[in-house]
Structure formats: C-alpha cells, structure tokens
C-alpha cells in the first residue's frame, strides 16, 4: 500500500483508468448483478449468525423434513433444522474456504511465477517443470488423495485445494512478467541498481494485479464447487462444519421425499458461483485491455 503513495509511473496512469473502469462496469448489467450477488453473499457470511431465523444446529427431530412454510421459509432438514438458517451459516464457511484457498494459492503461485519469469534460465526451467508436474494431476483427484492422507476436516480441505490450484497463478504471473521484463521502466529500475526483490514487488507485481484479480474472482467459484464436491464424496469437511457441500451430501438420500433439503444448498452454490462468474466476466471486460472497444 505504501507503494501506491509513492506512485510508480504505471499506478499514476491508472487514475483515469480506474474512473474509466467504474464507468464501464456500470454499463455492464450482468456484472452489476454479479456484484450484487457477491455483496449479499458477503453480507450473509459476515452477519449471518445474527439474522438466521433459527439456530442452524438446533435439532427438532419430530419436525423433520417439513415443507417450506412461513416459520421455515426453506423447510427443515432430516433433523428438523432450518434449511435457510443452515444455508446462511454455510455461506460463512464457503467464503472462508474460498478466500483462504485463493490466498494460499497466491502465496505459492505468485512467487513461483515472479521468480521464474524474472530470472529465467535454469531457475525457470526447474520451477516450470515442477508446475507442469503438479498440473498433470487432475486437481480434484490430487485433492482427494490429500484428503485421504489427512482425513476429513475444514483445514484439510483448505490444504488440499491450496496445494493443487496454485499452478495457474504461477503460469499467469510468469507470462505477465515475461512481457514486462523487457519494458523500459523495469530495465530502468534495474539499471538504477534497485534490488531484484524491490523491482519485482514494486514494478512488476502491480502490473500483474489486473489478471490476478480477474482470475481470483472466477476461481473462488471453482473452489466453492470443489469444496462441495469433496464433501459430497465424503472426503471433505466434517458434518458439523455444515458447509453447503455437506448439507447436500446429507440430504441427497431424501431428494424424492423432501426436495428442498438438497435443492436449496445446491441452488445457493449455483447462485454464488454464478455471481462470481458474472462479476469476474465484467471485471475482465473492464480490466483486460485486449477486449477494449
């Protein structure tokens, strides 16, 4: 953040760019819808526990699988718990998993991309071959294998999804760096004798931000689906974590009998994923200069 006050040439230029971006976002109704969905989602995740109509964990077995009603707007689950309250509660965990996983993926992927793009040569070869090797395993399978090693639980889900998806960041950042490396201001910074780390952090990384942000927005959606898939297969979060995936997994046997128990958490996933995708699309249109009219 301190960097921004000093204003590197690229950042200074971006003031008009920002205004331009906001203007163009406003013109994109799909993006606005996406943003609204995300804001609602974040609001629920933050304040959810104050607004759930019922305690998401309180069981009332005699009233299990009640249809949606005024008291239980989305019905009750197999233990008579309020489906709406559980979905609201689950939002918190979904966003937590989404953000943490993205954070860890960046933490691994960005340095790998920066270093290999900046230094090139043997360092790049080694890092990129490692990246290739990790990519070679379908993400969900590697994640399942890690879950089988570590056992159920939220921390393990975060770990499994983090160590599998960082490769895209590495490749993304590397290709940005490659195109920036020879730019004048980078060469100038190097020439002035700035430390390599400084050059990377101050002059190169900020210019990768646009694609990182766009990619991350889309990826949160992918992570939420991946978490749900792991939990659905029984190798994800534990039942008491009450993620949307575990909620669906526990209610799926009652699909014909009480469709609301599995449909609404599924719909919640689809809506949030849709939200992030719509917004991510709009962001790309706005931030990616290649698609400028």
């Amino acid at each position, binding site marked *: 953040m301190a960097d921004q006050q000093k204003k590197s040439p690229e950042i200074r230029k971006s003031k008009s760019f920002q205004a331009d971006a906001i203007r163009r976002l406003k013109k994109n109704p799909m993006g606005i819808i996406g943003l609204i969905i995300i804001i609602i989602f974040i609001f629920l995740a933050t304040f959810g526990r104050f607004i759930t109509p019922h305690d998401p*964990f*309180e*069981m009332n*077995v005699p009233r*299990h699988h009640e249809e949606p009603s005024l008291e239980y707007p989305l019905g009750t689950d*197999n*233990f008579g718990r309020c489906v709406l309250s559980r979905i609201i509660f689950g939002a918190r965990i979904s966003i937590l998993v989404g953000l943490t996983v993205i954070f860890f993926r960046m933490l691994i992927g960005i340095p790998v991309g920066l270093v290999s793009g900046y230094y090139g040569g043997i360092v790049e070869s080694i890092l990129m071959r490692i990246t290739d090797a990790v990519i070679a395993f379908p993400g969900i399978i590697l994640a399942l294998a890690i879950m089988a090693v570590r*056992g*159920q639980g939220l921390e393990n889900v975060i770990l499994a999804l983090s160590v599998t998806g960082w490769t895209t960041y590495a490749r993304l950042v590397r290709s940005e760096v490659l195109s920036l490396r020879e730019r004048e201001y980078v060469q100038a910074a190097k020439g002035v004798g700035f430390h390599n780390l400084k050059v990377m952090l101050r002059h190169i990384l900020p210019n990768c931000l646009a694609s990182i942000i766009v990619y991350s927005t889309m990826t949160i959606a992918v992570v939420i689906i991946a978490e749900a898939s792991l939990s659905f297969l*029984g190798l994800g979060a*534990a*039942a*008491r974590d009450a993620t949307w995936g575990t909620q669906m*997994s*526990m209610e*799926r*046997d*009652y*699909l*014909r*009998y009480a469709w609301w128990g599995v449909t609404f958490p599924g719909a919640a996933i689809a809506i949030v994923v849709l939200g992030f995708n719509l917004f991510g699309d709009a962001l790309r249109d706005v931030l990616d200069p290649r698609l400028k009219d």
Partner: protein
Amino acid sequence: MITKGLALLVAIILLSPVAFMSPDEGNGELIIARGTDAPSLDPRATTAVYAIEVCEAVFNSLVYSDRDTEIVLDLAKDYEIKDDDVTYIFELREDVTFHDGEPLTAEDVVFTYETILDPAFGSPHKERVDAIETIEALDEYTVKIKIDEPHAAFMDSLDVMIVPKHAAPSDPFADVDPDVDEEIERGVFAHEPIGSGPFKVVDWSPEDQVVLERYEDYHEGPAKLERIVRRIIPEDEAQYADLMGGRIHVGFAPEQEYDALDADPDFTVIHSPTLNYFPLYMNHDYDRAPMFEDFKVRKAINKAADYDAIVEHVWETALRVHTPIVQDTWAYDPDSIRVYDHDPERARELLAEAGYPDGLEVEIIMSDSTTNVELGEMLDAYYMQAGIDLQVNTMDFGTMLDRVVEGDYEMAHVGMVGMTDPDEFMQRFESGDGAGNYSNEELDEYIREARRTVDDLERRKELYSKAQAHISENAVDVPLFNSVFTIIMDSDVVWDYHYVERWRNIDEVYWDN
C-alpha cells in the same frame, strides 16, 4: 474441419465395443445390486458379508445355523459328538463334486481348516475355530475334529466354507511373495474360485459385477436360475432408480419408500430380522481412552443422549435394544438388564464428579454410511447439551475396522455380526477378545462356565442372565439396536430371503411369471 473431427469422434464411439441393446432380461437371469464389492472370493480370507453371500452360492460348509439358529446339515450327512464332548465325527456326502469335476472329500475339509488355523495364512475365521486341536480324515468321507475343551457353541462355528485342496492356495500371499513356488497359481483362486455350490463364478470385474452361472452337476440338482449377476452400485439413488426401472431385480431402497413399495404390486419388500447387535463402543483400553476407566463417565455417556429417539429416527425399522443378546433368542433376559434413561443434567453432574467439570472431549469413529453420518450429527447435538464435545470421524469401513481391531479409538460405532449362539455374542466381552477391550474376571467366568456347560441349558441361561446384568450394570457399552435387513425384489422373483441364511437357499430362487 470441425464437422470432420466430430464425425471421427462419433465413429470412435460407435466402433468401440459399446452395444445399443439393453441387457438380456431372460427369466433365467437374476440381477442383484449391492453397494460394496467383495474383497476376495476365497471364503477363508474374508468375513465381509459382501463376499460371504456370494461364497454361499459358490461353496458349501459342513453345517450351518439356519434362521431359527438350528444346526442344518450341508456337506455333512451325519455327525456324532462323542461322550468326551470334545470329539466330533462328521460323515460327508459322497455325491459332491467341485465345479472342475473333482470329488469333494475329507481331505478338502481337513485342508480348509488347516489353512485357516495356520497363523501364517492370517484367516479372519481363525479365532472362531481356534478351539480345534486336531482335525483328520479318517477315510475318504469321514472327518474327525477334536477340540481342547467342551464347547457348547462349537457347531455354530463350523459354517466355514470348504475349498478344494487341489486348486486353492495354502498361502494367500503367493501372489506377492517372491519366494513362493511358481507352480502354485498366483492369487487366481481368490478371483476365480472353484467351489462345490450351485453356482460357479464365470466373471468378476472388481467393483463392477460378479457373474455366476448355474453348476449343472450340483449335488442337490441344478439351481432353478441360470445366471446371477451381482452388480455393485454405490450410489443409493442410482440403485433405487434402477430397481424401479426393472434394470435390477433385487436391491435396496431408502427407508422412507418402504410403505409405498409395500403397496406396489410390482415389488416385494422383505424385512428380515437379523442377529446383529449395534452398540457404541467405549474403549476399555484405558491407555488409549483413560476417561472410560471411570464408571461415572461411562454412565454419563449412557445418559447423555436420547438413544431411543436416535434409533427411531435413523434406523426406522430397527429394534431398540439394551443388551447384546438379541430379543426373543433363548438367552435373552430383559429382567436382568439395567436401562439408562436420557438425562443430560445428570450426565453433566456425573462428568463433574468424575473430574470433568468443564465437560469431556471424545472422538467417535465409524464407517461413512448415510445412517452413520446421521447418527454422528444427532449424537453431536445431544452430547453438546450434556457437556460432551464429540468429534465425529467417519471413514471407509475397512479403515474404521482396522482401527477398531487395533484398539486405536476412543468411541466407535460398529456392528457385531455373524453370531448365532449366545456364546458368540458374549465372547466379544471376554478379556482380550472383544473390540471394546473389556476385561473383567467376573464376567469372564460367567462366559467361560456357560461355554463349558454342554448339557444344561437352564444353567447356561442363568449364567447369561448374570453376564447381561454385569454388562449393563457396568455400562460397558451403549447398546443401540438390533438391525433389520430390508431388501426389495421384483414381485415375480420367488426368494424366501432371510438375513441369517442369506444366499444359502439361492438354488431354490426362481422367476414366477
């Protein structure tokens, strides 16, 4: 370019061995669905019910216990127990042949039991037949078994299925041990077993299907069905949908569908009683689970949840029980049992008295079936009110079983299955034998004396009453339920199914239409 590419892809699909016809539904074929596959079809190597039921169609045993827990003759045409109560003589049927045409003789019986008793073989059946001191073939069709001391329930353990000496390996690890003689066929027997039963295995693709074909020379006459396909369908929803669509003929349905299915003339719903006892184990190896050394903690656990409500909700058809001995069997004694009622406040007090004023943390492990996940959710909610923080850990059945057998757990939920005589129920509480690692001399004495009491049923009954009283008074475990096994069949299939006999009568199954 694209259209060409697509045409090519379509061509690949069409040319590959994917047929357009739906499977043949001739009346000689029965398709049975299951969620889990057998680990092995060598009956000596496994106790998994998914394997045993198939083995029951492929093999025979000397005798077995039927649905009324009476001993029925199978390969034995007669038997005699000598006056010393430890010598058993079995006369074998002389008309039995294996699927490869070789006759089944006393040598095969001796071979089967010897390999099971060989510690190097590692058979999970070993413990059940460990009482055997010697087994020998007196002549081609006579077997003599001598046991170490009189044993009232010994006959119940002779349902081990007999494998052919000329084909079955005496070392189950022949396939992995490089030192083993090359001449023994490596590991093939467990996949392509040869038995003497009404059906022979013609194809087994693991985790997909086992195909059985009628053995025409079966000693009781050929079976009525020509073919049995046992398919593995892990997802309940898929199994149910295919059952409804007539693509499988015998399978499972979700509990909440039973009533509708009962009313549907196209389906038969069979609720078969079982002898399976499902408790919550508390580990009595106090090095692993120190809290359970204190009776107050065990009592608190027994009072912490409304187990009646849990069983009623999660296993709708099961019978709630308070003792390991199943209701309506002869040793069952409801009057000797102490029943703990749900009282979370009292549970909290008990925990405080036992030195856990701030509550107790416990882990429970169990397999990851839907019902178990539900059990975990309900236990968690109830225990929380009693000040117990329950860590529910569900896992693959095999993994869970490994941990229970190793004693590596605090609490566990797993069924006690494969028992017919009360001795087998009680054995699990004997020192050093049970998964709960319970060890108490007084209880051991009741169990052992009852085992030695060969001729006096009243005396045995009395001893088992004392044992049941001891187990419930000391809150050794948390008794939950006796399961009821429900399967759904096409109503044209005639199969007098009973869980205790499973596939033993599969040769009599036929299509009636």
